[in-house]
């Protein structure tokens, strides 16, 4: 089974703090993604990466950065947290290959999510 884990389920931070959200996957997937989910707005892609040290901006990258030093780990960084970054953050991974039976290319597997509150 694909496992995608996120470092925290719930996080409360103050405005201006630097925040790190960590995501780890154990299935050797090349691609990793960070989304935020807000009521009425669905899932919006923040950043993604298709290889170590590679990153691509998604649809809403402002106020965020990412780091991918190892294939299995993708970190989302809020340099200076603001109240409008209060949200649910979801990490996902995928592969363009049929690595495992029952998986499909580009099928994304999601972590449990981190509910971040910035006060």
């Amino acid at each position: 089974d694909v496992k995608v884990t996120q470092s925290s389920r719930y996080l409360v931070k103050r405005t201006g703090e630097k925040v790190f959200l960590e995501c780890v996957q154990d299935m050797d997937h090349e691609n990793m993604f960070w989304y935020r989910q807000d009521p009425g707005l669905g899932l919006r892609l923040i950043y993604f990466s298709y290889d170590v040290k590679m990153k691509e901006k998604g649809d809403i990258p402002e106020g965020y950065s990412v780091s991918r030093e190892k294939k299995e780990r993708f970190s989302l960084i809020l340099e200076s947290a603001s109240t409008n970054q209060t949200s649910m953050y979801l990490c996902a991974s995928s592969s363009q290959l049929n690595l495992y039976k029952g998986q499909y290319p580009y099928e994304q597997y999601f972590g449990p999510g981190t509910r971040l509150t910035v006060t």
Partner: protein
Amino acid sequence: ELKVEQNPLFLSMQEGKNYTIYCNYSTTSDRLYWYRQDPGKSLESLFVLLSNGAVKQEGRLMASLDTKARLSTLHITAAVHDLSATYFCAPTSGSRLTFGEGTQLTVNP
């Protein structure tokens, strides 16, 4: 830019009834995914539709894909309470998925 529109966004239905959720998307995409999200939980993959005319069924849910019409449907047959969840469609754009807003389904006894 790929845009995805689901309708309806909210669906309240009686147990035992049938209904269809529609997913329209704006540009060519050769595969589409359906996901389910239970309240407070993450997304779980339901169906992968890999080509035009693809149809997949699992229990009371059936998904289909018409790439020419840029339309996918998720049909619910004889709904039961356990199907209450939010359903997302997501066509591909390269290695990315673009998600619809989601359809929040509530099945009432």
